[in-house]
């Protein structure tokens, strides 16, 4: 199956095309909530392919999925710091690190998500839920300009973006816990 390889690498290549890259990074919300997630998704597909090719490496390095998920959380949290988004625009090294670390986090995610148990998954999910809510709050409420490269207006838009994602995540939890899950598990 080469399909995941093709999908993953084409997403990555499209994101690398200079005009597309520059355009995406010129708008804060697209930078944070479209480009960064797409990089992770590209990694997800690449990881899918790599696991089928070299399963041994993943078993050796990430047997129970916990180290992988810890690194995934660390990398994604790192890119949520107000500073990193800014620096990626100013320093080419940062930009390079972004295009390397986020696909790697995607590879780690696809490998780890299947390995950790329900409890871990729910915990990670709820963690991101409160983290996104907080990010939304931070960007909406901050009287000061948090990033040097983006205007306060853009900051507000991003804040609402985070709140929107949080709301969707909450709705998903609510529908999950209140609809019957027993039949699904039997099939």
């Amino acid at each position, binding site marked *: 199956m080469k399909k995941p390889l093709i999908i993953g690498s084409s997403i990555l290549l499209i994101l690398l095309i200079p005009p597309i890259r520059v355009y995406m990074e010129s708008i804060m919300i697209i930078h944070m909530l479209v480009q960064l997630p797409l990089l992770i998704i590209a990694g997800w597909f690449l990881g899918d392919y790599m696991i089928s090719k070299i399963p041994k490496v993943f078993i050796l390095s990430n047997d129970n999925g916990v180290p992988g998920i810890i690194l995934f959380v660390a990398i994604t949290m790192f890119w949520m710091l107000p500073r990193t988004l800014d620096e990626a625009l100013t320093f080419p090294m940062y930009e390079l690190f972004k295009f390397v670390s986020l696909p790697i986090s995607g590879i780690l995610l696809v490998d780890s998500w299947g390995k950790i148990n*329900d*409890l871990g998954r*729910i*915990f990670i999910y*709820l*963690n991101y*839920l*409160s*983290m996104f*809510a*907080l990010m939304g*709050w*931070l960007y909406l*409420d*901050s*009287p*000061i300009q*948090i990033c040097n490269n983006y205007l306060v207006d853009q900051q507000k838009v991003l804040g609402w973006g985070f709140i929107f994602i949080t709301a969707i995540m909450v709705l998903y939890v609510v529908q999950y*816990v*209140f*609809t*019957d*899950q*027993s*039949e699904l*598990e039997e099939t």
Partner: protein
Amino acid sequence: MSTVIGNNKPKSNNKLIGTSLVIGGVVIAAMMIFGILMLLAQGGVISVSDAMFYQFLTIHGTGMIGAAALAAAGVMWYFLSRYVNLSRKVFIWFLALVLIGVVMVVVGVFSFKFASAWTFLYPLPAISASAWGTIGALLYLIGMLILGTGFLLLYIDTGRAIIKTYGSLGKGLGWDVISGKKRLEDAPPKVVVASTMVTIVNTSALIAGATVLIMNIINVINPSFTFDPLLAKNLTYAFGHIFANAIIYMAVIVVYELLPKYANRKWAVTKLFLVAWTMSTVFTLLIYTHHMLMDFAMPKWMLIMGQALSYANGLPVLVVTAYGALQVVHKSGIKWDMASGLAFLSMFGWTVGVVPAIVDATIVVNHVMHNTKWVPGHFHMYMGLGAVVMLFSFMYYLAKIDSNVKESKLDKIAFWCYALAIFSVSAQFLVSGALSTPRRWAIHYPGWMTPAVFGAIAGVFLVIATSIFIIHFVRYMKNRGTLGSDMNEQETA
């Protein structure tokens, strides 16, 4: 559905549960001592520096809520594990994380003088007028975060297990029975209903709590990141109120399990029971706004909702529980001992404790009363005479069915001593409230002092009684499993 599944080793679980109760009990007793010290200081008997007073206030509140929640979670886990498959490993993690959190909080408060009360209202942790530094605030806030993570893990596990066995949290609350899709006989047992309710409200509370705690941490580290204080207050109370409130809904499970066994009667789940628990689930999530009745900037509808729902909040569950308990006990020839006596006392305490709460939840009264000692009066009665008594009841229950440790005369004396003492402590607060004594003041005018001194004396008896309860339970922990009681395995109604 009510078949006993899951845990095949209830006896070895008892050690784990016992540990949570011993820690909870000992911390509660220790916190009572800080309570006495504060009352003595307010009564002018001893002199405590203002800074020290607020450290006491912080540790007293945090410790009491944390310890009671820890022990109550143990009670819930004990009974719930008979119906669904809970993970022992998670419970061990829970205990470990809570302990780490408690140690950090204690160090933050006593070594680094953090004293913003357990409500840590933003932006107080960062702006303390140099009363405490960044390290103290960070230790406290991160300690609370770790403690909360422990609880969150536990509730994720209960939620996961309930969904696995019953299909969904809605079914755990018995919604398909309410809607008539399922017969009443197949309704989930009371333990599951109560646990589902607590899982829902506390998971929500903990997520709100995590958000506001991390927000405070960011603000402490980098004060130029500021946040909307009103939203912060909303989230803080959405966390604090719900979490504190849920303690009694976990602890009450012991009443459901214990009274039918003692009275040898069935306490069947009725539709009314299910509806009541669903209503309380919703109300508990919404009524925290009664903490904001004095914040004029809040939207009016939220405040009105806070008032209206506060009236309604405790009542549904309280009424079905109190009424059910009376029905089960009435003319049953029940054998009264420490466990059943405490269970019954707790129902009395819960009922009586709700009254001052409802008075305070009235906007007009709240404006005058909320910053007086009336409010501590309410929650000392509600927690001390309600929730905590349920925990003690469980301690005696577990000792009885799992060991040959006998109750003595001393325990009976402690029972009455406890009841009178906590009643006096609460009454003292209520009287002070009626005298307009402000709450959270380190120093009192002479006119306010007498009730405080009275409360401190009552507090001493309270500590003695509590110690006797705990000593009994520790004796049980040392003699665990010396009695193969059939009550342990017997299926509950």
